[in-house]
């Protein structure tokens, strides 16, 4: 946590108090936001499908999730006879804890640019409006999303029945496939920002919409990130993990009561966190105009509005797009997204290198184009040779 000015000279009780308060606020915020996210999704989808949706518990059904949560608490906790007792209990916690942890590095406020570096003063101490700002910030998010796979995978295996197992095997294959595209889209942002710290990434985007990485990275990384994130979250149209028509309920078929609630919580929490990450990486985080007074207030409002826009997009996806078939999913991930983002990664690296070393425009891009042409020719020749060998074998057989 070297980045946060809170910890620059020594730590005393006040610093620990501020830290504890930040953790508590982030935790509560996520829980409450998840509660309303479930309601938001159900209400929005019913609007898009000409239904009414939850409308009984509380005004406009706002308390529906709360009622569901209470119900979950009082249900019997079932465990299948074949289940592996220890791993069956462990899996929901892995899912929930990783979902909570990744939110720690997201900056949720603070005004950046024009002299201010995003610090906020609490009790006479300067600090960032994020729980932690480790120097490896964005890698922590990727690490957490790769650990989250364990929750799904172990849940499916430990249930000791076939549908959850198929669901979890699909989930792990899908997560591994799309993590590569997700990671490389993040690397493009890291190259542009020159830092891994989430605070640094937001600070690098300060100063107007044109500096937001969604535009200065050329939109492609953002689109790849959005698609890969949807797949990583197992949200429609990539929800093969729990395809109701094929797998009953997917990896959590055998879970009931509060353990199921933990999975449910983790799923929606991850949607919120992923939206927050996209806002941080590509949309300048809390950047936005300070309208009047209160400089600490407006950035948080802009941040929340941007996150809300992404939550809407995720729900919109779910309401409108049909589920992909398994081979289409793999085709999209390996043959389209990864080559595209690899190409874009090299292009952005070359662009940055040229700018840093002041190389000649024509020479740089000319050399790159020739190298690309030779590479493509070699690849095509190899593919054609492989095809011919395959055809020969077929004719012989």
């Amino acid at each position, binding site marked *: 946590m070297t980045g946060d000015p809170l910890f620059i000279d020594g730590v005393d009780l006040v610093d620990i108090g501020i830290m504890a308060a930040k953790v508590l606020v982030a935790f509560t915020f996520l829980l409450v936001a998840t509660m309303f996210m479930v309601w938001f999704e159900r209400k929005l989808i019913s609007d898009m499908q000409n239904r009414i949706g939850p409308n009984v518990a509380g005004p406009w059904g706002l308390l529906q999730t709360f009622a569901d949560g209470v119900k979950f608490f009082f249900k019997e906790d079932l465990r299948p006879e074949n289940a592996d007792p220890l791993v069956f209990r462990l899996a929901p916690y892995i899912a929930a804890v990783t979902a909570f942890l990744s939110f720690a590095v997201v900056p949720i406020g603070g005004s950046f640019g024009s002299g201010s570096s995003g610090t906020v003063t609490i009790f006479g101490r300067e600090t960032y409006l994020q729980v932690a700002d480790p120097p490896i910030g964005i890698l922590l998010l990727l690490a957490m999303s790769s650990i989250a796979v364990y929750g799904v995978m172990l849940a499916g295996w430990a249930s*000791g029945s076939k549908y959850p197992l198929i669901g979890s*095997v699909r989930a*792990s294959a899908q997560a591994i496939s799309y993590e590569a595209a997700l990671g490389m889209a993040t690397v493009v942002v890291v190259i542009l920002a020159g830092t891994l710290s989430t605070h640094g990434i937001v600070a690098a985007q300060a100063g107007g919409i044109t500096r937001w990485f969604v535009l200065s990275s050329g939109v492609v990384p953002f689109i790849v990130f959005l698609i890969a994130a949807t797949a990583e979250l197992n949200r429609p149209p990539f929800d093969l993990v729990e395809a109701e028509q094929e797998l009953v309920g997917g990896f959590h078929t055998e879970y009931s009561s509060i353990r199921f609630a933990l999975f449910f919580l983790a799923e929606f929490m991850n949607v919120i966190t992923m939206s927050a990450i996209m806002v941080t990486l590509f949309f300048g985080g809390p950047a936005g105009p300070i309208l009047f007074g209160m400089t600490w207030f407006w950035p948080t409002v802009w941040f929340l509005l941007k996150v809300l826009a992404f939550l809407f997009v995720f729900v919109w996806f779910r309401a409108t797009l049909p589920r992909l078939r398994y081979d289409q999913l793999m085709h999209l991930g390996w043959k389209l997204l990864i080559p595209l983002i690899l190409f874009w990664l090299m292009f952005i690296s070359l662009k940055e290198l040229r700018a840093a070393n002041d190389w000649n425009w024509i020479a740089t891009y000319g050399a790159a184009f020739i190298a690309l042409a030779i590479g493509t020719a070699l690849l095509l020749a190899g593919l054609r040779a492989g095809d011919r060998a395959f055809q020969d074998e077929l004719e012989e057989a």
Partner: protein
Amino acid sequence: MVAQNIFFGILSAIVIVSALRMVTTRNIVHAALYLVAVLAGLGALYVLLTAEFVATTQVLVYIGAVMVLFLFGIMLTKAPLGNEMEMTGKQWPLAALVAALLGGVTIYSLLNGFGSDRLVTDGPVYRTADVSDEVFSTYIIPFEAVSVLLLAALIGAIVLARKD
């Protein structure tokens, strides 16, 4: 330093116990999970040494990719639930001997090389940029060699697996 020592003790205990359980447990998925615990504990030890980048790489590569593939393979092939199989092979004394020898050599070379050196507590913090500068300048040839080796292994695996 006191806090570091306490956490070092706790983490080492976790790593050692998990390592022992990994080789003694009879459930193959549990063994893989204990291996995850060992790798996670090592990652935490790297954090204690202020090598945060190495720690996250440990989590991303070993826990996030290698062990997921391990478990993936185990679950698809042989992980009958609740079926405790005999997992101790006939050559276990030989394997124990090799492990002991390897451990001995490592400990000896560490003691020989660093012996009474103390960890510099207020030394430089290694930033990710430093690590990448080293990898792409001083160690560029080993780095490229490893990349080519991995690519060859990947293609080799596909050639072996394809039977058409």
